[in-house]
Each structure stands twice: as structure tokens, then as C-alpha cells.
């Protein structure tokens, strides 16, 4: 009888211990990430910004990502124009709405989402790997001992770089994607460039571009906060940094795709579309 009670108590204790270490990890992570984001934003408003580091990060995030953004957006625009032309040819015996659908899709969805996904893979992963390596080799502790707050030194420039460069990359992605669609439409579907642009601009206004533009600011926040948070909390040597990097990319992508739905809902309800 006593033995059974002791076993039950031990089982409960083990369960409680397990619960403490596993179940609340995502909530704890969310709390820590929010706190870090708040600290970063506070530092920016207090003026603790190293402009030299920020410009270096802007070059890394913006300029270095540009070739891959140009390439992927151009092909995405062409794929869209090909699909729309092919589908409408089957339905109406001629390719219609190629300009409208291609540019509309690029501006409101594919431009911002595709750019965010590419930047997550390139920049988010790099941020987590770099900060994570610094964490496991005690370089973050060294920053503290040398009178530097690691959040201020590492997170602030990366935060600003992502926040300002991702929307710019998104605009470029939109333009290049639509241009890719136009090239395909003129060559494959014999649609003149004038007809393509007039179709596109008849249905698309400033608000349509604004829709994607606003989303890109939010996606930038997701990428940089997740990447920095995962880096600052990496542990366990090289393996830990690898796991943190994978987790950073996956978490950012999932957050981007899920938040895209809610953002779209919000922007549509605000008539920004």
C-alpha cells in the first residue's frame, strides 16, 4: 500500500518535472522573443544604434540578397503568366487577364511572401548561425564583460537592416516578377507589352501595392526576431547551433505563412487591397 503510494508520488513528480521542461517551452520562447524584441525597439528609440554596423547589415540583407530575389521573382512572374495564359486559353480559347492576374498575384501575395521566404533562408539562417556560434563560444559573455550589451550590438543593426531592406526587396520583387510575366506574355501568348500593362494597371492601384508592402514590414519583424531569439538561446556546441538554425528557418516560414492569412484578413477588412 505504502509502496504503491510512493510510486504514484514519484510518477507524479516525474510527470511534473517533464511538464516543466517540455510543455511550456514554446510559450517561454514566445515570452523571451517578445522581451528581446521590446528591448531591441527600446534601444532603437533611445538612439543606441551603431550606424556603421547597421549599414553593413543592410548591405548583407539587401544588396547580397538581390541576385537571388531577382532570379526567383523573374521566374515566378513567368510561371504565373504561363499558368494563367494556359488556363484561360483552355477556358476561353484565348489567353485573357494574363497581365491582371500576374501583376495582382505578384503585388499582393507572391512578391512579399516569396521575398520573405528567400530572405528567411538566406538572412534568417545566417543571423541565427552567427549569433548562435557566438553564444556557444562565450563571445556573447565576452561582449558583456567588455561593456557591450549583445542585444544592442547584434540585434539592433540586424533588426533595422531587415525592417528597411525587406520592403525594398519586396518592391523590387514585384516589379521584376511582373516584368518576367510581361516578357513571357509577349513571347508565348503574343500579348503586346502595352496590352499587358494596361490590363495590369486597370485593376491594380496604389492600395494593391500597399497591401504587399505593409505585409513585408511584418514579415521582416518575424524573420529578424525569430532569428535573433534562436541565436541568443542556442546551446550545446555545433550541434546546438545547427538545430537552432533549422528551427529558426522553420519557425519563421510557418509564422510568415500563418500570419499572412490573418494580415490579409485585416488588410482586406481595412479595404487596403
Amino acid at each position, binding site marked *: 500500500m505504502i509502496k504503491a503510494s510512493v510510486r504514484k508520488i514519484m510518477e507524479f513528480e516525474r510527470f511534473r518535472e517533464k511538464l516543466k521542461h517540455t510543455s511550456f517551452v514554446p510559450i517561454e520562447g514566445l515570452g523571451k522573443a517578445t522581451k528581446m524584441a521590446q528591448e531591441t525597439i527600446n534601444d532603437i528609440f533611445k538612439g543606441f544604434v551603431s550606424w556603421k554596423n547597421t549599414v553593413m547589415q543592410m548591405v548583407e540583407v539587401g544588396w547580397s540578397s538581390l541576385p537571388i530575389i531577382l532570379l526567383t521573382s523573374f521566374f515566378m512572374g513567368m510561371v504565373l503568366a504561363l499558368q494563367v495564359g494556359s488556363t484561360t486559353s483552355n477556358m476561353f480559347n484565348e489567353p485573357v487577364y494574363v497581365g491582371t492576374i500576374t501583376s495582382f498575384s505578384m503585388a499582393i501575395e507572391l512578391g512579399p511572401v516569396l521575398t520573405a521566404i528567400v530572405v528567411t533562408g538566406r538572412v534568417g539562417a545566417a543571423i541565427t548561425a552567427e549569433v548562435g556560434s*557566438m553564444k556557444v*563560444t*562565450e*563571445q556573447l*559573455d*565576452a561582449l*558583456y*564583460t*567588455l*561593456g557591450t550589451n549583445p542585444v544592442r550590438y547584434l540585434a539592433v543593426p540586424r533588426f533595422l537592416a531587415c525592417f528597411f531592406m525587406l520592403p525594398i526587396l519586396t518592391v523590387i520583387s514585384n516589379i521584376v516578377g511582373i516584368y518576367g510575366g510581361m516578357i513571357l506574355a509577349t513571347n508565348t501568348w503574343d500579348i503586346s507589352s502595352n496590352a499587358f500593362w494596361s490590363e495590369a494597371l486597370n485593376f491594380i492601384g496604389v492600395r494593391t501595392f500597399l497591401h504587399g508592402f505593409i505585409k513585408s514590414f511584418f514579415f521582416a519583424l518575424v524573420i529578424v526576431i525569430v532569428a535573433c531569439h534562436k541565436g541568443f538561446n542556442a546551446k550545446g556546441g555545433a550541434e546546438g547551433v545547427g538545430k537552432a538554425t533549422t528551427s529558426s528557418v522553420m519557425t519563421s516560414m510557418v509564422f510568415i505563412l500563418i500570419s499572412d492569412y490573418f494580415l490579409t484578413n485585416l488588410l482586406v477588412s481595412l479595404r487596403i487591397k
Partner: protein
Amino acid sequence: MIKVNNIYKNFGSNVVLNGVHLDVRAGEVLIIMGFSGAGKSILLKNIIGLVKPDSGFIEIDGIDITKCSLEKLHEIRKKIGYVFQEVALFDSLNIFENVAFGLRNLTTLNESEIKQRVKQCLAMVGLKNVEHLNPSSLSGGMKKRVGLARAIAYQPEYVLYDEPTTGLDPIMSDVISDLIINLKKHLHITSIVVTHDMKLAYKIADRIMMLYGGNIIFSGTPDEVRNTKNEYVKQFVRGSSQGPILIEKRFEMERI
């Protein structure tokens, strides 16, 4: 003056520091020894505020760093240099930038003074013409010396060394010993040195303490260490596998 008062630190069920008391007098060189995993590095990290104790307090020049604000802690850290066990040089910066990092953040020196100070500190640890190199192109021993130069560059009042001679050849270890003695003699720097290197300990120490089971179990001068009857200290100094430390460690392993 540094006062560590009754500090406890646990990591899960692992009790690392179990009510540690110690006072570090101004200008002295204090050696903390103990077997690997005894909690020496954690004790140093508590003293500089990188790790917060579960209870107890640590006073540096009369300020309790376990309760003070981040700004105050930042001010106190200006007084302390820290030599990391794994060096922790910044990979993205060259050697000059690494050594100059603390000077730029913690002092008001201008660029030419910083240049001069960096050169001087690197020369003190036996390094010349390495300023433009990246940490990855240095050997382990050279990195260790750069770490030391970085910690002393801004002339802190206290320097905490976490195994400063590990990975160095005997001659360079002796150079580091002389450096610590000179820092004490000329700049009145107070040092806490965590080490296993008994030759270094005997040469530089004013006092030697031994950390065992989360507590300081011995404190005395180098001569008192040589003549102690404490079986733990005797075993550690001899570097023998026979003695109370092994018996208890074996017992712990059997329990696991």
C-alpha cells in the same frame, strides 16, 4: 574589494555552489583550485555578473551586484577584466579590433592612444605584428594570449582569469605568471585565478583556496598548502588518483 557571501547555484538537481563565502583583498592574487566540474568557472561568472546566484550576494567595492540595476552592473564591469577559458575572441574582428574593443567601449582614449595601448598589451603577452590577423589564423596558445591582452587592455582594477595557462607551453606559462605578478606590482591589480596549474599557483598566489562539493574547503598561503594535512588538498596537489576525491567520485558514479 570583492565579497562573496553565502552564494548558492543549482542547475536543475545539480548543486554547483553550496553556500560559498570568500573575500578578495585589494591587490592580492587569489588562486581558486578544484577538480574539473567543481564549479570554479561558475563562481567566476557569478562574480562578474554573467550568472546570477540562486541566493546569497556578491559585493564589489560595496555594491551588491546581485541586486543592482543593469546600468550599475555595466559600471562595475568596467572595473573587471575577464580571461575566458575558451578565449572567446570575436571571430568577425581582427586581433587589433579584439583588443581595442574594451578600450573603445570602456575608456575615453582617442584612436592613436588606443593603437599604442593595443600594441603595448600585445607586446606584454609576447605577441608582435599580429594586429591585422584574424583569430582563426592564430594557434590556441596565441589566442589565449590575445584574450589576456584584451582583458588587461583597459587597465581594470580586478582581473578574473579562467585557466589562463591551459594550452600554453611551460615557457609561455611562466611569461603569463610574470605578467600577473607585474600587474599586481605595478598597477595594483587584484586577480582571481582559476587554475589546475600548481606551478603557476605557487609562483603567483598570495592565497590559495580549494573548491570542493560546492564549498571552499581550504584557504591558505602557498606554504600552508605545501604543509597541509587536508587530504583533499594533498591529493589534488599531488595529482594522485588515490584519495578521498576519487573515492567520492567513484561512489557518485556507482550511484548513477
